[in-house]
Structures are given as structure tokens and as C-alpha cells.
């Protein structure tokens, strides 16, 4: 069966963001339909996610940006099973997952979804090596294999020599790299990143940007939530999220923009 070529949204600005994605077919690693989530706390109910349709192709790097409070982190939590939607459907690799209970989601998050968070969420009383190996061991990988995976990832992320360190002894940027290694140790088809640079300085942000780009180039599918436009521009598709809805869904094609483009923003004028 032949696949229809993906339609570039950037070339078709008239496409309504609400319309079903043209790539919702079998190639979608992740698909969501009409997701709704309302938070009930003190005061008025907050409608965090208000009917979101989303489809992410294998190998795609999607950034979701928007102001704080727009609901973008809630959306990511729904996609990773950290929160349950009020209504709507989610498919992972074509399998419907929105009916899963907590235990089943926990399994998915070991095998098919890696997650990195703003505050790293490393286990503070485990060494760097143990933090990375733990999800592999929980997924039933042999300790030898887990160690090999860990060694390879830490080397790749420039963390050799830090194996025995405790998370608290590392800089924020280093902790986020450990968290990235932990998220990827089981080779999940999907990586979710929730403000991964949110608590890093600009050097740490550049580092995370570079690493996400590198894993993406090797085929890793990534959904990233960020308010940082520099980080978002590393993605090949940027979704603008406002008030619980997708306001725009743009493919960054990297073609030089009309007009002056980068020479216009770099040229120094008297």
C-alpha cells in the first residue's frame, strides 16, 4: 500500500489546525483525538486541554510552545499517561492506550515512552550509573546488558567519569543529561520532554538542544514542550498552543525565509 506523501503545513497555511492530520495513518507513533482535560482546584475549573487532535510520525521532532498556563505540559502528561484525560483517545503505535490503568502506563513508560522533566526527577540517593540502569533492569534487561547500555549512553552524553557521582553533586545541565540517558536506556520509540531546559542556564539550554537534535538525527521521535523559542526551533515541526488548543501547526522546512532572512538579523548597521 502506497503512502500518501506528507503535506507540508508550512506550504499550506490555509490548512486549519483542527482538520485531521494528513499523516494520521499507520506511520503515526503517537496519535490523539479530541483530548480534553479540566483541572478542578480552588476557584474556577481550568480547562487545560480543550479538544486536541495530534498525530506524530515516526522520526518526527515536534515542539509544543506557548505561554505558561496554556496547558502544554498537561497535554504532554496526557500523552505520557501521567494524567488521565476527561475524554478523548490516545494511540501509541496504533494501539489505544487511554483506557490503561496506572500499572499498565508505568510499563509503557519503561518500554515505549521515555520522559525527561524540567527538574530532572533523578533518584537522589542512587548514583548516576544506577539511575540510568534502573529502568533497564525494571524492564527485564540483564544487568550486563544494562551496564553496557549505560556505559554507551553516558559516554555519548559526555558523562564518563561521573558514574559514581550522586545527582546532587552534578550541575543542572549534567543532571539533565543523566535524565536523558535514563529516558533513552530502553530505546523507547517516543521521547517526551517537558521543559527540559526550563531550569538550565543558556549554556545548559544549548547543550540540551544539541543533544536532542543529535538523537533526532538518528531517528528518535521526540515531542518537546518548551516556552523557549531557541529550543523549539531545533524541532522540525512547531505547534503553538494557546488556551488549551492548537493555534498553529507549522513545519519548519529550513528554507531561507523571504526577505533578508538571517543576513537581515545579523547585519550590523551604523
Amino acid at each position, binding site marked *: 500500500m502506497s503512502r500518501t506523501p506528507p503535506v507540508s503545513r*508550512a506550504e499550506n497555511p490555509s490548512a486549519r489546525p483542527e482538520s485531521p492530520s494528513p499523516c494520521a495513518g499507520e506511520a503515526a507513533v503517537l496519535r490523539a483525538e479530541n483530548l480534553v482535560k479540566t483541572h478542578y482546584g480552588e476557584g474556577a475549573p481550568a480547562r487545560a486541554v480543550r479538544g486536541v487532535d495530534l498525530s506524530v510520525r515516526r522520526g518526527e521532532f515536534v515542539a509544543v510552545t506557548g*505561554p505558561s498556563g496554556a496547558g502544554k505540559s498537561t497535554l504532554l502528561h496526557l500523552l505520557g499517561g501521567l494524567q488521565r484525560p476527561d475524554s478523548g483517545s490516545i494511540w501509541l503505535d496504533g494501539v489505544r492506550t487511554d483506557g490503561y490503568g496506572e500499572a499498565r502506563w508505568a510499563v509503557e513508560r519503561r518500554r515505549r515512552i521515555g520522559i525527561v522533566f524540567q527538574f530532572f526527577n533523578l533518584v537522589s540517593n542512587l548514583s548516576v550509573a544506577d539511575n540510568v540502569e534502573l529502568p533497564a533492569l525494571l524492564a527485564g534487561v540483564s544487568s550486563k546488558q544494562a551496564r553496557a547500555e549505560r556505559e554507551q549512553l553516558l559516554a555519548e552524553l559526555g558523562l564518563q567519569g561521573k558514574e559514581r557521582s550522586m545527582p546532587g553533586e552534578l550541575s543542572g545541565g549534567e543532571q539533565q543529561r543523566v535524565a536523558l540517558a535514563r529516558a533513552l536506556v530502553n530505546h523507547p520509540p517516543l521521547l517526551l520532554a517537558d521543559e527540559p531546559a526550563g531550569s538550565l542556564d543558556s549554556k545548559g539550554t544549548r547543550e540540551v538542544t544539541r543533544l536532542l537534535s543529535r538523537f533526532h538525527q538518528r531517528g528518535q521521535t521526540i515531542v518537546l514542550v518548551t516556552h523557549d523559542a531557541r529550543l523549539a526551533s*531545533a524541532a522540525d515541526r512547531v505547534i*503553538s498552543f494557546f*488556551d488549551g488548543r492548537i493555534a498553529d501547526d*507549522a513545519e519548519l522546512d529550513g528554507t*531561507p*525565509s523571504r526577505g533578508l532572512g538571517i543576513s537581515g*538579523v*545579523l547585519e550590523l548597521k551604523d
Partner: protein
Amino acid sequence: MRLPLLALLARGPAHGYELKQDLEQLLGSAYPQPNVGQIYVTLGRLEKSGLIEGEEVEQSSRPNKKIYHLTDAGREALRAWYEETADEPRVRDEFFMKLALAPQTGLADQIALINKQRRRYLNTMRELSKLATTENRDNRMSHLLIEGAMLHLQADLDWLERCQEELEEQ
């Protein structure tokens, strides 16, 4: 281009092509370099206004070249340049006028305008990120230039976000 050329000449006399090379070395490939023609034209104007003086130097196998040096007036102009602070960056006024006037023209939707502008900025941001990865790591000035451009663009993107937040509520 006038004052940067004066600043390059503050170190000592040089000819036009040397100045171009100095500029390239300082700012790296990220900076859209002026062509050598622009440099000669600017040097001509600076000489006419008495800020620099040129001296013809004979070359055996090539046409004469002109070596320029800073005059006292030139040094004074440069000093005045360093005394001043630079102007603030400005809001993209053309986009702002389009946005502000859109409803009454009935020709464009404000949110669509914002989305279109955001796409353009994001694509440019992406190009800048790529440029930052290809630029020589040791050229600090060049990296600072790229980072400055990215931060300005980020501010514009943040501002678009604010516009969208406000205008979507209506």
C-alpha cells in the same frame, strides 16, 4: 560601515582589502560581509570628509594601492562614537501597523497574521541555530553576534505570543 572602518584604522594604517580581511577575521562567516567595493566607496567618503587620509603606494607588478590612516579629526569622531550609547532596538513597526490596522481593513485576520509571522521567525531561528553549530567555536565575537540575533528574535517571538494571548481572548 563608516565607524567600524575608522575603528579598524585606529590600530594603524591599512589598505582596503586588509580592512575587509580584518573584519572577516573578527566577526567570522556569520556576519554578512560587505563586499570590497562597498569598503572602497566608504573609504572614499571618509577621506572626503577628512576623517582619514590615503597615500598611494607604488607596487612593481600591480596597480598602485592606497594606504589609509586616521586623521586627528577621525580619531576624534571615533572617540565621540565610543562616548555615545547605542539606540535601543525597536519593535517591528511594519508588522505592528499591519496587526493594528487589520480589523478595519477586513483583509486579514490578526491571529493568522501572527501565525504567519511566527513561522517566519521560527524558520530564521532555525537557520541561526544551524549557523551557530557550523561557525568556528573559537570565534567568540561571531558566536556572540549569532546569540544576540537569536535573543532578539526570541523577544519578538515572545511578543507575538503576548499579542496572540490578548487578541484570542476577544
